[in-house]
């Protein structure tokens, strides 16, 4: 019991600690791939600290919503991230919420982000929010379809259960393959990565996520950035926990498995980050109105997978 609580707490701290690192890692690797030296891996931590120390500049007509949104965004994301098994399954609170809830939590953080974007009443904020919501209208159903596939295979929407199931009867399924691709697409879109959005851009008309947080500064910006980093980590660990669940520690199984679990988890993250960067450097960003088709394909894949499972359980 106590151990479980500790593990749970440890996980929450861990994700919080690792998130900026993952982000920094991807940036560094990216610049290396682009033959640049790039910032050190810990650069993101420094940025956050600097932002936190700066004073926060609020637009004249920013409301209370504008000031509180960052915390709402952050906490929703954090809770979601804390609910995804990373290095150990059967977390103490895992049954408090399942994959659908995780999706919905991310949804609420997006909701607040979009509102925050509109609060000051600038054109760019509006652009960002409306495009973000457009993407979400496709990404969320796709996510639900993915949930369907996984849940139908594993007979549960509980992430821990799913992970255990995957380890125990690891089988190759067409549907799972489709789901994986769909999930990757969704993850790219949700984290504002190329080809849907460019995290590094400041060419206003093309940006989505950046446009919404344009008016933020100081600690508020820091919190939002951290939330973004968490989100990236969350999707990584989600893919990890569903599709490569090996090496996770089983509930209340001594200390060594936990260590192994953490180690494998870090390795997974590194691999994931590397693949992401590889993918990003190898393709170009697409026009905003190509993105719906991109996401639509994810929805279609997920739906196809579900259909296959419904029609016959052998796929």
């Amino acid at each position, binding site marked *: 019991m106590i151990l479980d609580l500790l593990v749970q707490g440890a996980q929450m701290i861990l994700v919080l600690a690792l998130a900026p690192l993952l982000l920094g890692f991807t940036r560094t690797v990216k610049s290396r791939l682009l033959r640049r030296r790039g910032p050190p891996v810990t650069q993101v931590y420094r940025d956050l600290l600097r932002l936190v*120390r700066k004073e926060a500049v609020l637009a004249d*007509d920013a409301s209370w919503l504008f000031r509180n949104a960052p915390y709402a965004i952050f906490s929703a994301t954090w809770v979601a991230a804390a609910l995804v098994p990373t290095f150990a399954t059967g977390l103490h609170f895992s049954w*408090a919420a399942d994959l659908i809830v995780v999706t919905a939590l991310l949804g609420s953080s997006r909701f607040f982000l979009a509102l925050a974007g509109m*609060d*000051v009443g600038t054109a760019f904020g509006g652009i960002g929010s*409306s495009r973000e*919501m457009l993407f979400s209208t496709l990404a969320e159903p796709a996510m639900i379809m993915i949930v369907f596939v996984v849940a139908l295979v594993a007979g549960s*929407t509980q992430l821990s259960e799913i992970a255990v199931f995957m380890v125990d009867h690891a089988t190759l399924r067409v549907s799972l393959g489709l789901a994986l691709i769909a999930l990757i697409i969704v993850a790219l879109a949700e984290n504002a990565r190329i080809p849907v959005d460019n995290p590094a851009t400041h060419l206003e008309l093309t940006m989505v996520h950046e446009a919404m947080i344009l008016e933020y500064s100081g600690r508020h910006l820091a919190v939002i950035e951290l939330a973004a980093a968490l989100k990236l980590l969350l999707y990584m660990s989600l893919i990890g926990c569903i599709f490569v669940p090996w090496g996770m520690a089983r509930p209340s199984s001594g200390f060594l498995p936990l260590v192994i679990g953490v180690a494998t988890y870090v390795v997974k993250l590194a691999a994931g980050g590397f693949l992401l960067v590889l993918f990003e450097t190898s393709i170009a960003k697409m026009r905003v109105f190509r993105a719906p088709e991109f996401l639509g394909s994810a929805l279609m894949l997920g739906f196809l997978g579900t259909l296959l499972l419904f029609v016959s359980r052998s796929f």
Partner: protein
Amino acid sequence: MPIAWVLVAVAALFAIAALAPMTLSRRRAEAGTLIYGACAAACTLILVIALAALLGAVDAGGTLVLPLGLPWLGARFRIDALAAVFLVLVDLGGVAASLYAIGYGRHESAPGRVLPFYPAFLAGMNLVVVAADAFSFLVAWEFMSLTSWAMVMAHHHDAENRRAGYVYLVMASFGTLSLLLAFGLLAGAQGDYAFAAMRGAAHADWVAGTVLGLMLLGAGSKAGLVPLHVWLPLAHPAAPSHVSALMSGVMTKVAIYGFVRVVFDLAGPPAWWWSVVVLTLGSITAVLGVLHAVMQRDLKRLLAYSTVENVGIVFIGLGLALAFKANAMAGPAALALTAALFHAFNHSLFKSILFFGAGAVLTATGKRDIEALGGLIRRMPHVAYAFLGGCLAIAALPPLNGFVSEWMILQAILLSPALPQWGLKFLVPAAGAMLAFAAALAGACFVRAFGITFLGRPRSPEAAGAQDGDRWSTGVMKTLLGLCLVVGILPNFVIDALHPVSDLLVGGAMPAQSLLPHLSIVPISESRSSYSGLLVFLFILISTRLAIRVIHDFASRRVRRAPAWDCGWPDPNPATQYTADSFAQPLRRVFGPMAFRSRIEATMPPPGDPSPARLVLSLRDLVWDTFYAPIAGIVLAIAEKLNHLQFLTIRSYLSLVFAALVGLLLMVAVWA
């Protein structure tokens, strides 16, 4: 006997309605307060009784027969579990609306056209729910339509409202006639109109099937099922806001009650294809409704369309329940049904909040067009706060209640691979996708609604000079919001309260929820899925506080106000903000062509010409174009044709008679 007390309260409501005119003539000032207060009291009484009946505190069994209505049958009234649930729903909405109206009603321009009908409307809805024979059911049903119609016509100088009222009442009576036919079938040639008798009788398959179809026409048209929804976005906004709230939040649920009562209770065991029909209609309704909602500029009409969406979601749940029931899978059926009813309840909560908010905005600014609003969060913080909560709830975001019911429906969908029929195997996942799609769109819709209305800078002087809602309205809205939260984090008790209903209707129930560890809900089994709203809520609460504390301890507290940066091009003119239409533009661009046959004509002046460019956007309601416009056209065309008969000469009239005579004589000659 509780039913007796309910009827007493209803009678009291009628009495209030009857006394309203003289109260108005006497003490005009306090009339509203008096009447709405009295209504609130009466509804509270019924609410208490219903809750007691539902939780088994009092024995609600037994039918009360009054010597009214059909003389040889009498008017029969009864409270069973289903009725109790919907009584709670109706009167919760009733109490809220009445209390809200105590404040809101002061701004009513034509109280004389609202006050007498409002109590009668409440009474009608209550009677529909407790009626236990076809006649009193239909009388109450149509009376409900009639009184609400009268309130839709309250502001009758506006031609739009008159049109709305017309479409509304015609659709309503069409629906009533289909219900009439349905009950005719159920009652049989002997005309046994008591529900008990219908329940007992065995109905042939074609009879039951026809009844389902007729119910979809009758109850569906009142609930706003596509393609019978057209009246709803016209009529609901036209009424005064507290009435709109009742119509959208409660009356549609009464329609759903009618559907459930007949299809699940009276029509006998369902065939599996019923669920195909219901699921299809439900999914289409959900998606089309919310797609329309995203495009609306009129705040109340937007809310009305979102009502259509939620009705669709409820019908998806009902369809699943039918599918499971037809295949004798009691557990899943119970889950689906519970989810559907739960969502109906939730919707009545947050839709009331939203309409109340819309009403407050309307009174504060006199505007329903959100393009003319903006920045109200600073002028009307309380209303904005409650409205935001309503938006979160209706967008199905945890930890609020909207999420729980939709989560349960998704869980029910995940159980459906066990269904044997192929048609369902294909249809159910599609319905699931539609549901998720609708939910996501709802998110976009309400970000837009709240963002444009309350955030940003005021787009009109009225919006700039808005005042916050009065104490009554904001109080009611916040209370309802609190209710949404409580129901969202402690759904267990609601689910257990719905236990007897699923027992009654599908012969099974979900596992008892109240006593699970950490108050989580488990639809089927712990290993499958579970959700603990309480824990999630605490999680979020703690982590938020934690984050704030940490930040405020380690970060600088300094804040500087400055003009917006806006990439260095700040422009104080509110017109430079993103508008509602531009917010919807990406969605319109993606879904518009197929959903609305949307067309955009942009006329650019030649370069160097300073005259403004114009952009004309046209959206069509395809349902109206494909069904209603032609019907109206045909009717008028026939009328035109026949109208010539008005202008014939006497001789031609005589020849009509002559022809009839000769024709009949020929007939006789041939027969005899």
